């Protein structure tokens, strides 16, 4: 086996040194009859050529996003990732290192995380950010639990504009919290403020919403704060924050989001990178790892994981979260891409995304497809004639990925809605193909 350096001679020598006759002597503590001596009912090992051939055949059965016109968003976005990003994250020293507990030999990872935290804080308009969560949906659930701890209240008001699967994750994971879930809001007209009361720990609002509407968070933040509640702001498309006012500037107390759209591929849903930002005064209730600046014994600046007394490996059952592994390598990809972009590149990229979406929406509207949004960034909702899922399925059979039929995720929503996203990769030809698939 090409990955196993020990030879049969090595093994014999090692058994001798240990003072035993056979490897199974080391498994003497396995209860009688439970040591498995037959080979497992699995195929034999294969060469690199054979594995590559088999997996490539499997991969070829899938329609890749780059194979044709592509308009899916709904929480995962197809952006161009510069070649530099993927090269750098495959550096051995980043790819094959562990959590940076030994700070002296982990300064690379720790400085990257410090840069990541700073970038996320600035992008969201918040004071601090952690070193990443699993993804946007789990970050949202953690934010709800954090708000409950901070306010010592037990109810979360959740907007109907939130991604339906995020809503399900929050409801599943946030133990000890009750929910006031607003109905699905595809028109972007809900009155979430009316649901806030004195028991509300937090109100959870997504902007741009799942349906693409931009939400003015300021009146919601004001109402929440007057009721002693916190505003948890959610986003699924980080590129949007290059073009829209950040949640931190509109009064959000905790900002969570999906960072995949910067630096990371679609990957059929994971691994992605959860972004989590808040204010300094709440930092000790924040979940997840944090890299902090400090000095070494010679007075040189360095970085180390800090405030770990919040975390499970120190606090065990008193920890703020059970999270351990984060999404370090995806955070690195985010940071490298963001460094390549800078404010200038990000603003331009966001503007281009918006323009492509405007062009798509206008072309659809001209063809008689109803666009429900007054405002949007790079994603909006349309109403088609007939069953949206059938239409998307038919388009797919013609090589066009036309968007998400809302009913796939939310059976309570009408069956004729499609969420359509455009990015910098959307061409005029793609738009023409989409119009052909959705009109009439």
């Amino acid at each position, binding site marked *: 086996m090409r990955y196993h350096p020990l030879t049969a001679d090595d093994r014999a020598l090692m058994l001798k040194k240990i003072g035993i006759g056979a490897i199974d002597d080391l498994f003497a503590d396995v209860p009688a009859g439970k040591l498995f001596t037959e*080979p497992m009912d699995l195929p034999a090992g*294969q060469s690199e050529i054979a*594995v590559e051939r088999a997996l490539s055949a499997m991969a070829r059965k899938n329609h890749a996003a780059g194979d044709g016109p592509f308009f899916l968003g709904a929480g995962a976005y197809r952006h161009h990732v510069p070649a530099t990003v993927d090269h750098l994250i495959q550096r051995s020293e980043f790819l094959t290192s562990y959590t940076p507990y030994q700070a002296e030999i982990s300064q690379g990872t720790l400085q990257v995380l410090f840069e990541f935290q700073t970038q996320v804080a*600035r992008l969201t308009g918040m004071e601090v950010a952690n070193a990443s969560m699993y993804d946007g949906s789990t970050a949202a659930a953690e934010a709800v639990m954090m708000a409950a701890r901070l306010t010592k209240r037990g109810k979360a008001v959740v907007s109907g504009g939130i991604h339906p699967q995020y809503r399900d994750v929050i409801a599943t994971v946030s133990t000890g919290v009750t929910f006031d879930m607003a109905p699905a809001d595809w028109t972007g007209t809900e009155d979430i403020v009316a649901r806030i009361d004195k028991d509300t720990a937090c109100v959870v609002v997504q902007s741009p919403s799942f349906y693409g509407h931009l939400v003015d968070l300021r009146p919601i933040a004001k109402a929440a704060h007057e009721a002693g509640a916190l505003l948890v702001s959610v986003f699924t498309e980080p590129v949007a924050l290059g073009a829209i006012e950040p949640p931190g500037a509109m009064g959000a107390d905790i900002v969570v989001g999906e960072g995949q759209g910067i630096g990371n591929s679609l990957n059929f849903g994971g691994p992605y990178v959860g972004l989590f930002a808040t204010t300094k005064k709440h930092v000790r209730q924040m979940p997840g790892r944090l890299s902090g600046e400090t000095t070494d014994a010679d007075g040189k600046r360095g970085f*180390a994981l800090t405030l770990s007394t919040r975390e499970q490996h120190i606090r065990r059952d008193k920890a703020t979260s059970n999270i351990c592994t984060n999404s370090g390598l995806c955070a690195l990809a985010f940071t490298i891409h963001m460094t390549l972009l800078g404010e200038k590149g990000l603003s331009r990229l966001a503007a281009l995304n918006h323009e492509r979406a405007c062009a798509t929406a206008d072309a659809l509207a001209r063809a008689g497809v109803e666009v429900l949004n007054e405002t949007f960034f790079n994603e909006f909702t349309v109403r088609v004639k007939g069953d949206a899922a059938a239409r998307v399925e038919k388009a797919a059979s013609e090589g066009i990925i036309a968007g998400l039929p809302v009913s796939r995720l939310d059976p309570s929503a009408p069956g004729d809605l499609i969420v359509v996203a455009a990015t910098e990769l959307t061409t005029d030809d793609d738009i023409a193909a989409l119009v052909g698939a959705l009109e009439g």
Partner: protein
Amino acid sequence: MGENEMAASKTFTGNQALRIQEPLIFEVGHNGQTGVDVPEPAAHTSRLGALGRKTPIDLPGLTEPETMRHYVRLSRQNYAIDLGLYPLGSCTMKHNPRLNEKMARLPGFGDIHPLQPLSTVPGALELMKTLSSWLLKMTDMKAVALSPKAGAQGELAGMMAIRAAIAAKGETRGTVLVPESAHGTNPATAAALGYKVEGIKARADGTVSVEAVKEKLGPHVAAIMLTNPNTCGLFEPEAAAIADAIHEAGAYFYGDGANFNAIVGKVKPGSIGVDAMHINLHKTFSTPHGGGGPGSGPVVLSERLAPFAPVPFFRGDELVERVEDAAGGEMPFGRLTAFHGQMGMYVRAMAYMMSHGSDGLKQASEDAVLSANYIKASLADLMSVAFPDRPAMHEVLFDDRFLKDTGITTLDFAKAMIDEGFHPMTMYFPLVVPGAMLIEPTESESLASLDIFIAALRDLAMAAKRGDTERFTEAPRYAPRRRLDETKGARKPVLTYEAPQPVLDAAE
């Protein structure tokens, strides 16, 4: 001033040949600089309404060559498996084959969207089903939930299935038993679900007795969370009896699979009586740790728990994505994450498993166990083995008794290992022995590599005993940084970059 710093001061730049200091991007980048040529958007009417960005972002950029150099320089300040032995106990830092990276990046896996029509992704579903079937055969379990994003979320999934099963029986059970040697995620997970956590003391030999478990059992106990092999590196000899006792009391057996690498192809957790166990694909199946993630923590379930698996799950060939679509006795407890979990990790793990095959997987476990015991046998005369009477599994636990009266701590010893070119072992964990040093070599090391590691540790142990204290207390001397002041970091945390204050403010 240390020797290292004196050498550094001899250069104008502070660099030392290949060791180059690198500032933060916020100190070298500019908001007007970019390394991406984005085309100018065509004229259009904005639909951002009143919410267009007015607040500046203040994000510096770098051109491509500057970005490349910045992150390559940073990478060189990291230790890595590809550089040397990384014996972190319970973390399984084994070789990460690059074939796996290549496969995960095939457009048919890397460039597919989780919400594409399922008819356009049959190969992705096939991969998920194949991975599921391999995991079930290795563990002799009934069902698998692939979606948990990491080990801790796998624990959460397993414990939520247990909670749902108990609720379905109309019972309320509020206590979870957790041995003191468990990973911190175990009690944290149980507590996050509202359970009271009750500890179980290990015997003097480092294992849990069925009597100790029985003493705590009762109608209030929902489950035991038992890592096997445990974090002392020992196989729990009474695991099957513990499972029987747990089941007799109407409770469930959660098996933490963090240490599965010791027993693949040797012991099937299902045959021991485990009801739920997460499998860290980033440990046992070699998906890269990436500086702390991403991980992947599929959880396998027994027949009793299978109906409660979260969405998404497979019903035959069909992927069930919504709780509302449950049918025929399925009672999914909910959804743990958007989409389908860590597909990129499924591909890597699958490539690893197919490369190894049935024999190779078993060989990997045997070599991992053999290597740990070889280290134990080679160091037992100089270092104190915490539990010498039982064979070690894939990791061996030492304590700090051999450092008694030397003035050298486990931390000092670990930092001296850095100077010798090794990553330290896991320190001060598990908590059940003083000054724990948990060494896990994995199956990826050659005999020559193990021998030089052993020789280095022997040299360090002898140096400690003969009073060569500075070698330890001053260590590391040759790393990119000397010891970092971690308490300062925690007292007044600096978590984001802030531009330097004007001199008057800074002079306080």
